[in-house]
Every structure is written in structure tokens, then in C-alpha cells.
């Protein structure tokens, strides 16, 4: 099987969804003729004609259009070009999409998929670099996932499109063209939810998601040199969140760390720790949160590196759980 990029995996999932289900439509800013500013939707307009179209720069109309089309029986997939831009139209996600099923007692539904991408990459300014998953995950009625590998970029998106609820799929701009892998494109659509253990270990359970997965895997390899065995869990879905897999892992390792690129306060990592602690899973050390400090994200690469935990910071912090006093 040939390796494809994370962006190509998203493209392949969209192609399959559009081919398999005539009720799917794909729209957003620059997604059709230009093929997306990140090239993720290339050739789909050519293949599917008017079911893939460009919209005005109007996030409320894009998201509201998806809500209305979904209420009428379509399965819209919309792109919000950068996750930061969702804020100009949060009403349509939070007050509208998330309420449709509940308030109508299921008489109406909004089976829409919102694709967006987030994260800091070199040079991305403060309005193009935020990590906003906790904001979506806080909203009952929405589903949220963050694929970290090409296979998951393919699988999670297909699952999201097949889901009868509004789902926000947060892709990683950093991974679009930098990460390649083999992708099985013939499998059945996976059920919604489910974490993936990328690496087994016996000393610390680390839960992470999105591009930070790769930072954590690198940190785990660094710690291997110090004979520290790190179990790395990619949450993948924040809603529904797979508490069982995490709790089971922590019950073996006795230690829990969460690592995310989003800033600390109110981050989803706190929710994960709360869930595990509430279950009464015994911990041999206090749980650890590794996150970006509560600040705005600067554009300069050097400043971004100073703000966002990299491999060495993550490794040092994890090490501190086993060897207090060692960490910076």
C-alpha cells in the first residue's frame, strides 16, 4: 500500500463519502475550484460537480446553511478554513446546530460535519493558531474529534460524516503535508468514539491528541533511554471520550499525564484527569497537565517554540512524575 499524506487521507475520505452517499454536499470558502487553501479538497468539485461548491466568506451563512440543509435531509460537510474563524459564527454551532435534535425530541436532526484545522505553525499569527477543542467539547449536542494520523484522518472523518449529530472534526494544519502513512481505504466505517494506544508502557499513562501525539511519542522515546516506560494514548475523540481505555491504562501504570497544545486553563486535559480521579483509580503520584501557558500565540517561530511544549519539555515534565525535583 502506498503512503499518502494526512491531507490526501482527508481528501480520500471526502471522495468516498461523496461517492457513497448522494445526500452529502461539501461547501466552504475556496474548497471547490481552488481545492482549498491547504489543497485538501482538490479535484472534488471536478468529480462531484455542484455537490462541491465555494461560498462567500460568511461563516454564519456556511454553518447556518449546513444546519438548514441538514434539517431537510442532506448530509452537509462544511469547511471552516481556520478554527479561529468559527468564533465569528459560534451561534450557528452552539445555539442552533446543537439544539436541533434535543429541542425537537429527535423530530429534527442536524447531521452535519464541520471540518476545520487548528494549531500553531511557524509564522501563524495569533488569530490563526489557537487550539479550540475544549470550547467545542463543552457543548452538549456536538461531537468532537481530532485525528493525528493519516489513517485516522480518513477514518474519523468518515465516521463523522456518517454520524447523525453535528460533528466538529479538527484537523491539524501542521500534519497536512508533513505526515505520511499507509491508509486502508476499504474498511468499514468505524463506530464513533474510541481512543487508540499508540505505545504501551508501564510507568506513566499519557493522554494526548492531535499533532501533540507525535511530540509525546518522541518524548516517550527520549525517556526510554532513562528506562522509563510511557504508555501513549491518542484520545482521538473528545466527545464521546473513551474514559474506559484511559482508566484501564492508569490502573496499570498508576500515573496519569495529559498533554495538549491548547492552553492550560479549562483545557480538556483537566476534564480527563477529573474523570479518572472520579473513578477512584489509585494514583501513585499527583496527575500532571502539560499544556501551553495561558497566553496568546505569537507568530515568530522562536516565540512559538518558547510558548508551546516541545519534546524536551514534555519529556522533562513526565520525568518529574517519577523523579521529583528533576524537572525544570
Amino acid at each position, binding site marked *: 500500500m502506498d503512503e499518502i499524506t494526512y491531507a490526501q487521507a482527508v481528501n480520500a475520505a471526502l471522495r468516498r463519502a461523496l461517492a457513497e452517499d448522494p445526500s452529502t454536499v461539501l461547501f466552504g470558502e475556496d474548497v471547490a475550484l481552488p481545492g482549498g487553501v491547504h489543497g485538501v479538497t482538490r479535484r472534488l468539485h471536478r468529480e462531484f460537480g455542484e455537490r462541491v461548491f465555494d461560498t462567500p466568506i460568511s461563516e*454564519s451563512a456556511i454553518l447556518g*446553511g449546513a444546519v438548514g440543509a441538514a434539517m431537510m435531509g*442532506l448530509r452537509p460537510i462544511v469547511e471552516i478554513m481556520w478554527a479561529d474563524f468559527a468564533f465569528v459564527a459560534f451561534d450557528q454551532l452552539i445555539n442552533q446546530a446543537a439544539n436541533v*435534535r434535543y429541542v425537537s425530541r429527535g*423530530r429534527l436532526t442536524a447531521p452535519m460535519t464541520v471540518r476545520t484545522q487548528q494549531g500553531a505553525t511557524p509564522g501563524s499569527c495569533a488569530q490563526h493558531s489557537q487550539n479550540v477543542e475544549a470550547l467545542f467539547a463543552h457543548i452538549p449536542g456536538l461531537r468532537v474529534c481530532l485525528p493525528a494520523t493519516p489513517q485516522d484522518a480518513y477514518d474519523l472523518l468518515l465516521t463523522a460524516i456518517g454520524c447523525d449529530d453535528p460533528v466538529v472534526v479538527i484537523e491539524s494544519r501542521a500534519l497536512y503535508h508533513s505526515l505520511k502513512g499507509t491508509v486502508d481505504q476499504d474498511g468499514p466505517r468505524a463506530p464513533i468514539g474510541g481512543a487508540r494506544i499508540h505505545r504501551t508502557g508501564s510507568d506513566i499513562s499519557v493522554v494526548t491528541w492531535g499533532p501533540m501525539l507525535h511530540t509525546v511519542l518522541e518524548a516517550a522515546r527520549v525517556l526510554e533511554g532513562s528506562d522509563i516506560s510511557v504508555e501513549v494514548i491518542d484520545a482521538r475523540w473528545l466527545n464521546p471520550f473513551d474514559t474506559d481505555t484511559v482508566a484501564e491504562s492508569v490502573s496499570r501504570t498508576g500515573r496519569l499525564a495529559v498533554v495538549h497544545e491548547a492552553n492550560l486553563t479549562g483545557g480538556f486535559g483537566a476534564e480527563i484527569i477529573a474523570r479518572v480521579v472520579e473513578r477512584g483509580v489509585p494514583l501513585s503520584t499527583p496527575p500532571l497537565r502539560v499544556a501551553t501557558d495561558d497566553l496568546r500565540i505569537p507568530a515568530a517561530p522562536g516565540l512559538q517554540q518558547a510558548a508551546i511544549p516541545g519534546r524536551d519539555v514534555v519529556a522533562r515534565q513526565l520525568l518529574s512524575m517519577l523523579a521529583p525535583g528533576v524537572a525544570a
Partner: protein
Amino acid sequence: MSHSLTATALADLAGLWRIRCFEETVTRLRVEEQIVGSVHLCIGQEAIPVGACAALDLTRDAVFATYRGHGWALACGADPAALFAELLGRETGTNGGRAGSAYLSDPDHGFYGENSIVGAGAPIAVGAALAARYDGSGRVALTVFGDGAMNQGAVHEAMNMASAFDLPVVFLVENNRYSELTPIAAMVRNADLVARSAAYGMPGARVDGNDVDAVRRAVAEAVDTCRSGRGPVLIEAHTQRLVGHYIGDAQVYRPRDEVELARTAEPIVVLTAALRAAGVSDAELTGIETRVRAEIETAAAMALAAPPADPNAVKEHVYG
């Protein structure tokens, strides 16, 4: 009026009374605190929903209203007893008590819901119209909002996108001169709201919103434009509230005699006078009101007798 026109007008009058009586009963139930929370009435504005819905095919068309939407639900054909029950938090309510006065829906009658966010229904109506492109239904989406919503960004986005894509959306502004508690004239430089249609390259029409037949004709023409693929239409219907923005609104912001003056031009007075002039007897006119009052009274009694919404079901339907 010809005989058939008179028959239509008599049906219109019944439609106006149905909404008026419903809302008068709602007022009573709210004052008695059997209905709780914020309630927005459309007393004085009934001709717009009655006229507009008469021009729609509600087996396929979709209506998206504001929180001042009881009249729209009724004009779409929703069961008054189910609407009362919704306001009363009963199990038999259109939404089983989950929506209340300001966010109820009844899609079985083409009523896709009120919206408590000013202007938010407009982009959703655009989506419903967009779906018509693919499902072959011939659906027209009608979204109604107040003059205040004309200053919401989402409404502008919706009007532009509908225009750019020639989508079948009727944007209907109920201009009752007040954006909640503030005069629209103080909030815009150009109070001629329909003039904005030109900016979006769509037809615009101004209509006397207290005249059922004028509303029906304007909406029918707009629906025809939409169904023939010629894109959206903006209609500005002028009207006045005979009541406050919400039940309990003391209306300190309104000139003292404004409502009294408005009572001489409100839709029931106007249509009743026209029918009387056309030769309809007072007995027949009074009969309509009496019949509708009885119908609404029965509906309210049914709703009051219904069980409260089931708390055991409160966690259902968050997800599929």
C-alpha cells in the same frame, strides 16, 4: 368583493381571530403564572403570518420564524392545543416542553421553528433552500424576522449567499418600528429597510402588513419568483405591535397615544370593516369571533388538562 373573495376574506378573518384569541389567552395564562418565562406576542401583527402562510405550500415549504412566532405556528396549521401545551410545559406540547414560548417548532406543518437569537433563522433558511437544489422538492424557505434583525450580520450573510446562488428564500421583515425596545429609526440612517434588497441584487417589495390580502399577494409573487429559480426576495411588511415586546413590558419608550392610534388600523378592525362594507352581516362577523374563541378555549382547556412534561425523559435526544 366577489363571493369567492369574500369567502377567502372570511377565512382570513378567522385566521386573524385564531391568533388574537390564542395570544389573549396566553396573556391570561402568563399573568396567572400558569405559563412562566418570557413571552413575546404578535397582537396587532397577525395579518403577516395569515397572509404569508396562505401563499405557501406547507406540504413542502419551510418557515423559520422569530421568538414572536406563535402566530406563525398557528398560521402554518399547528394545533392550538399543542402550542398551549408547549407554553405550559406539558408532555403534549409541540416540543414536549423543551422549547417553551420562544423556540418551538412543528415541522409536520412546515414550521421549522422559532429562533430566540435575533436573525439566526435566516442562514438556516438559506440551508433549507439549498437543500431544495438537490432534493427536487421545489421547496421555498420563508424566514421572518423583525426590523432589528436587519442589523444582524448573519442576516446580511444569508441574504448575500441566497442572492449569489439564486436560492429560493423569502426574507420577510416584520417592521413593527421597534427593535425590541428601541425605535428602528434611531438605529439606522435609512429606515427604508427594503432598499437593502437592491444591494443584494434581489427584488424587494414593501407591503401593508396589516392587510392580509396584500401580504398574501406579495408573498405569492415572491414564492413564484423563488420557485421559478429567480432567486430570493426581500419583503418589508409594516405593522405595529398593540402590546409590548414581552408580556410585562411597560413600554415607557413608546409615545402615549401610539398604541391607541394603531388600534384604528390593526388587521382585525380593517378586515372586519371591509367585510361589513362588502355586505357581510354583523351576525356572521360576530359568529366568526365566537366560534374561534370557543375553539381556542377548548384547546387551552385540553392543554391545561395534559400531564406535565416527563422529567424522566430530560436526558433523551441530546445525541442520536
